[in-house]
C-alpha cells in the first residue's frame, strides 16, 4: 500500500482538519463527537443532515453550505457514523423547523440514523436513497444501495429547504428525486482501505466488476475488460431497464468517478452515455461530470440518470455554495 499517511489511526481526523481549514469560510469541524456544520447557522429552515462512512469524499462534508447540507457526520472509513454524532449535529443546526436526515440505504447507516431519530428531541424525517440499480441484494443490505444519486437528492432538497419549505415538503421532494434516479457503477481496480492495508478484492488486468458498489462490494458480475462503448452500453441498458423512462423525458446525466479514473475518461464516458440516452429519446438537459461519490482509490465510474420535472429542475438549478458544488452564487 502506497498512500499519503502519517499514522493509520489519524488519517480521517487529519483529512477532516485539512478540509475544514481549506474551507473555513464554509464549514466548521467539531471533533468530539465528530461532525461538521455550516460556518454560519442558517435560520428559519429545515436543517438537512447527512452522513455515512468516510472514503466517499466529497460526499458528504463537501456538500455542506448554502443550498445543500447544514451538517454532515463522517464515520470511520466505510463504517456508519453513530447516533451521538447525529444528535450533536442536529442540536447544533436545528432551527425550529425540524431535521431532515438524508441516508444512503445500508443496514448500518439506516439503523444508526433510525436510533438517532428516535432519540432526537425535535421533529425529524428521513429520506433513504437507493439509486443503485445494479443489484437487488448486495453484501451490505437488503435492497438497492444509495450511491452517487444521493448528491442529486441532497442538492434538490437542500435548495428547497433554503426556500423555507416545511419538513414534509422537503422529504417528499427527496423521495421523488430518489424514485426518479438510477445509477450503476463499474470498477476497473479495487480500492484499499487504509486500516486494511491491502486491496478489498482481487481483479486482474483484463477484468472489470460490473455493478460494483461504492465500498468495493460485488455487483452483478465479473466480466472481461472491453472497449468503453460496450461497457457504457451495458450500464445504460441497466439504467433504462430500472427507470423505464417515457421517450421525450428530460434528464440529468451524472458521470461520477470512483477516485482513480481521470476526468479525461469520465468525459469520454459522458460522450457515449449521452449519445446512447439520446438515441432512446431522452433529452439530456443537465449534466455533472467529476468525482462526487468516490470509493477511496478505486478506478472506475458510475453513471446516474435522474428524470427531471419542472420542480426538480428548479431546485437543481437554484444557487448552491459548497466546497464541491458551486453555481449561481
Amino acid at each position, binding site marked *: 500500500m502506497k498512500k499519503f499517511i502519517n499514522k493509520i489511526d489519524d488519517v480521517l481526523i487529519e483529512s477532516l482538519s485539512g478540509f475544514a481549514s481549506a474551507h473555513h469560510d464554509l464549514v466548521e469541524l467539531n471533533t468530539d*463527537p465528530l461532525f461538521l456544520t455550516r460556518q454560519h447557522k442558517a435560520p428559519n429552515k429545515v436543517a438537512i443532515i447527512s452522513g455515512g462512512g468516510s472514503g466517499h469524499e466529497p460526499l458528504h462534508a463537501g456538500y455542506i453550505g448554502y443550498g445543500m447540507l447544514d451538517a454532515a457526520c463522517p*464515520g*470511520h472509513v466505510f*463504517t*456508519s*457514523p*453513530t*447516533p*451521538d454524532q447525529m444528535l450533536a449535529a442536529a442540536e447544533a443546526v436545528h432551527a425550529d423547523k425540524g431535521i431532515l436526515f438524508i441516508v444512503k440505504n445500508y*443496514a*448500518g447507516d439506516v*439503523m*444508526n440514523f*433510525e*436510533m438517532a431519530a428516535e432519540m432526537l428531541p425535535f421533529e425529524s424525517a428521513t429520506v433513504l436513497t437507493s439509486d443503485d440499480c445494479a*443489484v437487488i*441484494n*448486495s*453484501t*451490505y*443490505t*437488503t435492497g438497492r444501495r444509495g450511491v452517487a444519486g444521493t448528491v442529486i437528492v441532497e442538492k434538490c432538497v437542500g435548495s428547497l429547504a433554503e426556500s423555507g419549505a416545511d419538513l414534509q415538503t422537503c422529504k417528499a421532494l427527496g423521495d421523488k428525486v430518489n424514485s426518479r434516479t438510477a445509477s450503476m457503477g463499474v470498477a476497473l481496480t479495487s480500492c484499499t482501505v487504509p486500516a*486494511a492495508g491491502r486491496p478489498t478484492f482481487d481483479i486482474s488486468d483484463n477484468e472489470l466488476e460490473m455493478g460494483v458498489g461504492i465500498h468495493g*462490494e*460485488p455487483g452483478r458480475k465479473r466480466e472481461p475488460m472491453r472497449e468503453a462503448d460496450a461497457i457504457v452500453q451495458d450500464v445504460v441498458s441497466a439504467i433504462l431497464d430500472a427507470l423505464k423512462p417515457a421517450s421525450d423525458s428530460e434528464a440529468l446525466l451524472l458521470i461520477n468517478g470512483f477516485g482513480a479514473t481521470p476526468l479525461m475518461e469520465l468525459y469520454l464516458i459522458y460522450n457515449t452515455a449521452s449519445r446512447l440516452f439520446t438515441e432512446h429519446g431522452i433529452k439530456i438537459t443537465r449534466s455533472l461530470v467529476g468525482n462526487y461519490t468516490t470509493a477511496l482509490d478505486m478506478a472506475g465510474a458510475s453513471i446516474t440518470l435522474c428524470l427531471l420535472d419542472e420542480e426538480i429542475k428548479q431546485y437543481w438549478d437554484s444557487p448552491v455554495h459548497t466546497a464541491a458544488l458551486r453555481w449561481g452564487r
Partner: protein
Amino acid sequence: MKTSFILSASESIRDAILNHESELESLDRAIGDGDHYINMKRGAAAITELHAELAALTADAALNKIGLKLLSTIGGASGPLLASFFMSMAKVLKEKNDDTTTTYAAAFATGVEAIQQRGKAGLGEKTMLDVLIPVAQQFSTLASANTEINAICYALMQTAEEGMLATKTLIATKGRAAGLGERAIGHIDPGAKSCQLMINAVCNQVLSSQH
C-alpha cells in the same frame, strides 16, 4: 439483579471475545468484511473503561448505560443491534423492579424482540437471531415452569450452541453475508458465534455464583 453481577458478567464476556480472536476473525473474513472481532473488542473495552461509573448505578440504569456506550462506540450494524438489546432489557427491569427469573426471561425476550425490530430480521436468516430467538423462547418457557436456575443455564448454553452451529447450513438473507448466496453455506455466522459466546459467558457466571 445486582450491578456487581452485570460487571462481572461483562468481564466474562470480554474475556470470551478476546479468547476467540482468531475464530471470530476467520469466520468474518469468510462471509463478512473481517471487522467483527475488532468491533466487538472495541465495544468490550469501552464497557471495561466504564466499570467505575457503572458500579454506582442500579442494574437497569447500568444496562441502559452499557447500551448507550455500545451505540456510540461500535458503529455499523452491530452497534445499534446490541444497544437496542441492552436498552430494551433495561426498560423491562426498571418497570418490573423485582428480582425473579421470569423477569429476567421477559427482559431478555424483550431485548431480542428489539433486535428483530431494529434489524428487520427473523429466524433462519443466518444472523445472531438464530441463537437469540431460540434461547429467548426457552428461557421464558423454563422460567415460567419454575425450573431451577442451574438447569436453565445448562439448557440455554446447549440451545445457543445448537443455534450457532445451525447457521452453517443456512443461506444469508440479512446481514453482511446476504450478497453471497450459496457461497455462504458451510460457514458459521460470526454474529451468531459471538452471541453464543456471550450467552455462554453469562450462564457460566451465573453457575459459578451459585457455589
